[in-house]
């Protein structure tokens, strides 16, 4: 863990030295995944002995960090990492069941801003890899199968478009509301149904796709010289 933190810090420091700006964001995340829905629906259908049904994965929260590389053009590029969390919990007598779903995305991003035409509106295109991790907790404890945490890991791709608006006139610090439309066309996650419904490929295949919409705020620090920033933000 220490080594991982060290590598991460090293990476961030390294990237920062090439970065024109760093931004962090927080957003509400609406998720739709047909396969995850089906697995939970099957779980509810097959267990009439549970009075309170398991909710679908719908509402989540996402934190993200992005670096834009030094570039004086209107089209910039950078990298972005996001972490998203979704939960599904149902409490029944003797049986409080929770599924925790995490996504980590690493993206290459293209930043588009045309101050002349669109004032403070900007957009970003994200493309990259997405990883997922699904866990189960039963009665407040990690659900163990053969002394191992019940989990399903997934890997795949994701694309997305972000549209934001720079609120402040400040050259260095910028605060922007944004909306993001994301699509994960394919995540190979063969154990999702096994974690949720304790069956394998009874109703879903070994993959999922997901659509998501995020709405939130980004705080951005411009790291380049003030004079350079002024030319960009008018």
């Amino acid at each position, binding site marked *: 863990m220490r080594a991982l933190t060290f590598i991460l810090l090293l990476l961030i420091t390294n990237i920062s030295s090439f970065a024109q700006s760093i931004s962090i964001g927080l957003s509400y995340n*609406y998720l*739709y995944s047909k396969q995850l*829905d*089906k697995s*939970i*629906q*099957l779980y*509810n*259908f*097959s*267990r*009439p*002995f*549970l009075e309170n*049904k*398991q*909710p*679908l994965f*719908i509402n989540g929260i996402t934190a993200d960090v992005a670096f834009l590389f030094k570039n004086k053009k209107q089209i910039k590029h950078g990298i972005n990492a996001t972490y998203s969390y979704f939960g599904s919990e149902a409490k*029944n*007598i*003797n*049986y409080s*069941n929770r599924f925790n779903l995490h996504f980590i995305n690493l993206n290459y991003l293209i930043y588009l801003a045309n101050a002349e035409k669109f004032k403070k509106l900007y957009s970003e295109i994200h493309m990259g890899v997405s990883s997922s991790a699904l866990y189960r907790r*039963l*009665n407040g404890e990690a*659900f*163990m*199968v*053969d002394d191992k945490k*019940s989990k399903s890991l997934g890997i795949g791709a994701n694309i997305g478009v972000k549209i934001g*608006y720079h*609120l402040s006139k400040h050259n260095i610090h910028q605060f922007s*509301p944004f*909306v993001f439309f994301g699509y994960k066309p394919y995540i190979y996650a063969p*154990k999702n149904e*096994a974690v949720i*419904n*304790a*069956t*394998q*490929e*009874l*109703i879903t295949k070994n993959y999922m796709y997901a659509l998501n*919409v995020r*709405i939130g705020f980004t705080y951005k620090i411009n790291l380049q010289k003030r004079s350079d920033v002024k030319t960009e933000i008018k």
Partner: protein
Amino acid sequence: MNRRDFLKHSSLLTIGGLLLPSTILTACRKENLYEDIKYDGKVIVIGAGAAGLYAGYILKSMGINFTILEASSVYGGRMGKLNGFADYPIDTGAQWMHGRNSIIADLVKTKNINTTLDETGLSYWFNNQIVNTLPKDPFIFEKDNLPDISFKDYAHQQGFGSEYDKIIEAIAGDQGASSSTLSAYWNNKDEENWVSGDEDFKFSETYFDVIERYIAQEVKSNIIYNSQITSVDHSGDKIVLKDSSNNIYESNKVIVAVPISILKLNEITFIPALPTEKTDAFSKFGMGPGMKVFLKFSSKFYEEVLYGGTVCGAYVDDTVGKTTSDHVLLAFIMGDQAANLHALGNDTSITNALLQELDSIYNGQATASFISSSVHDYTSKPFIKGAYGYSTIGMGNARQIAAKPFANKLFFAGEAMNINGHHQTVHGAVESGYKAVMDILETIKK
């Protein structure tokens, strides 16, 4: 429009624009499968084993009219309970809950039912002595690229001599099969889908109690007993079922939840006949003889689990996980060994054969401390005729073909019809039960 107004309007529009569709989308996303489907047809379930009972339970939860027709006078199928033999109730059929990642494990947790992890140590009767380890590990049947040959042949191919034959027989017996008929390849292929976990649990009461109290209880008023279905005429709009007493039942859909042995032996006549592909698939299943014999002794002289007997492949201390002062040994006999004992013809001869073997292993202690026995020969049960379905050599996708619905009218359930790797288990039977109802509802959805 000034900046303030723009911000106000755009943020309201954004929030509204997002919340409205997300609310509509969320409302469209139901928490339950088939929540909107209403079916006013009638469903008949043939067989009140775990699969049939659970199918009924799901049909009831969906508000669908159903009847379960059971050939015998009791529900439970290959599950049962014996009171009075020992100072604790005994499971005469299925008794282990396999794994904790299963629908049954969820039910058990919900109802706060006591279970004990079975951590009994395995011993072997090998070269005429009891040993805890063997020169070579005989558990060689869970890996990729196994050939489609029998367990026995594969073991020989891997250099296991004939001294291991009875151990391999006991391992195959765990699958309800003989080592000479169980396919190494197809058995492993089935196991690949197993997601329940490898731990086994025993109930402080019985497994039968769980099924009885929480599943059978829900549907018992819909069961008609002593109704052995002999024909299913699905040629017309309504399906017409006839039992051995010539009672006639009509329904729109039928779930066939009988043991695979009944289908293999064509004990139910389908009119018109099922396609050859389907009947061929039935015939590819193995369903060997199976027997459980409980032996009560005045003292415990035996191992917790002993593999390798010639008469019985596996002797298991039945009292593990129970609150008892009695000493009960379970002889778990499958395949050829069960066939040999079945051929003896009566319970006394079966018991004597087992005592004789135990005496030879434990220097006469078995007969000296023997109190009584209880024999449960599933081969001789007229509506079961065996232990459970297993994968034979050349099995291929017979399980998938057998389990497939036919003509949107006939649906198949039972442990053998579990296409999800959980066949041969109660939770596998339960899964096949709700899968059959899903298949029915899919036809209605269309």
